[in-house]
């Protein structure tokens, strides 16, 4: 048996094969690997499910079309997430600062009021969504990338294309604002 068939190709290897004239199906694997996390990141920034779906589609289409410009110096995921953050922020800039916090998904899943989980209260979920919506897009992106998506400061700064010191400060500021606006939720 050929070992190559057992080995899982890295993102960068898939990208290289794609750049060398591979079939678009190779990109399907990259979509499969990164769709959930990319959408989750976009949703955390735009706070609207419909917009998050449209934007994640735009991000993958842009990534596919721009794959020849991807430089292997960075990880593919970093490059992809940077497109996601930039696309989300451009979208918010066009739409204006107001971020409608929706509850459509929460209602669809019937989560509110189940009482089995400390967060499973509609009111608390709304409070958290509203607190995130009140942050500026750059502070929100910083807290989404680090606190929610689990990136380190260096990786988050790389995705945002800013200095680590700037990212550190944004996180510090976002935490401070969120701790104040979510004081009741955090004390429960």
């Amino acid at each position: 048996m050929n070992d190559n068939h057992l080995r899982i190709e890295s993102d960068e290897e898939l990208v290289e094969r794609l750049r060398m004239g591979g079939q678009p199906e190779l990109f399907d694997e990259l979509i499969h690997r990164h769709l959930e996390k990319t959408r989750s990141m976009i949703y955390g920034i735009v706070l609207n499910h419909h917009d998050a779906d449209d934007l994640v589609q735009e991000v993958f289409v842009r990534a596919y079309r721009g794959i020849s410009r991807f430089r292997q110096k960075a990880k593919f995921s970093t490059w992809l997430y940077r497109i996601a953050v930039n696309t989300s922020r451009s979208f918010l800039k066009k739409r204006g600062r107001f971020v409608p916090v929706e509850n459509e998904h929460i209602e669809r899943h019937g989560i509110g009021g189940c009482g089995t989980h400390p967060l499973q209260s509609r009111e608390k979920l709304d409070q958290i969504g509203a607190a995130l919506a009140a942050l500026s897009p750059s502070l929100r992106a910083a807290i989404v990338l680090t606190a929610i998506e689990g990136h380190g400061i260096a990786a988050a700064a790389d995705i945002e294309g800013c200095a680590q010191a700037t990212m550190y400060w944004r996180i510090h500021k976002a935490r401070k604002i969120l701790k104040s606006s979510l004081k009741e939720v955090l004390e429960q």
Partner: protein
Amino acid sequence: MKDTDIKLNDTLRRWQAEQTPETKHMEHLNGRIRHAIRKGTRNPVPAPSGVGTPFAPFLGRLAYSALGMAAILTLLLVVHLREEEERTSNGHRPAFADSAQSLAALDGEVLAEAAMLFREMNASLADRLKWVAETDEDVQVATIDQDRPGGLPEEGPLVLVRTLVLSRPSSGGRWRSDWRAQVVTRAQEMVQVDLGGDAASLTIWTFPVNGEAVAVDSQLKLKGTLEIESSVSEILLSAHPAGIHTFFRDGREYRVMQVATVLANQRGQAI
């Protein structure tokens, strides 16, 4: 990481988990994306503009102009302060509506917090933090280059400068704040804040004077809905908001106000 940070992270992660769509929704979305990619492969588009673009411009040459400005400003300081003192003692200070003053005023809590945040972050950056600027939309930070000629600057004072654009109807009335930026910087460092739009920026250079005043050289360029270009060298009495630029447009009076004060040195000691 503090306990409160851990709790906040946990809360936010649980919130995010509650927002995750069902598998069926994600499968549909996956199919939608693959379809969009295959449909559009004959029409390539440029990569997003932000990809691979350095975030901050290099500002080295501004540091040299700062040295020149320092010499000129030092000569002007004494004269200007005397004039200011005379105006104040004669009751001729420019009068602004109370609302404009209060919108620009600095309170003790803001000063203490700004100094504390700067010190905390400066410590985490091995004393290399140069300045921090906060606008309504963003926070930007600059650090001192590792290989800066002459090494790290001597421990000097921190200066806070707040710049606001206020407006009210031309006929008078209450002021409202349209835009603001707060900078905490080491004295005599050139601060250049990228405000995102085309050539929109805030440039500030400060020089504390005898603990009673701060010389501030500033240039503000705003584009878009609020279009302003203001370039001023002022000596501001510590913590006294001053109007540095006024103009009328579209039935409104606009005023750029600035307030500055020395916070402490980098170790938090009052000077």
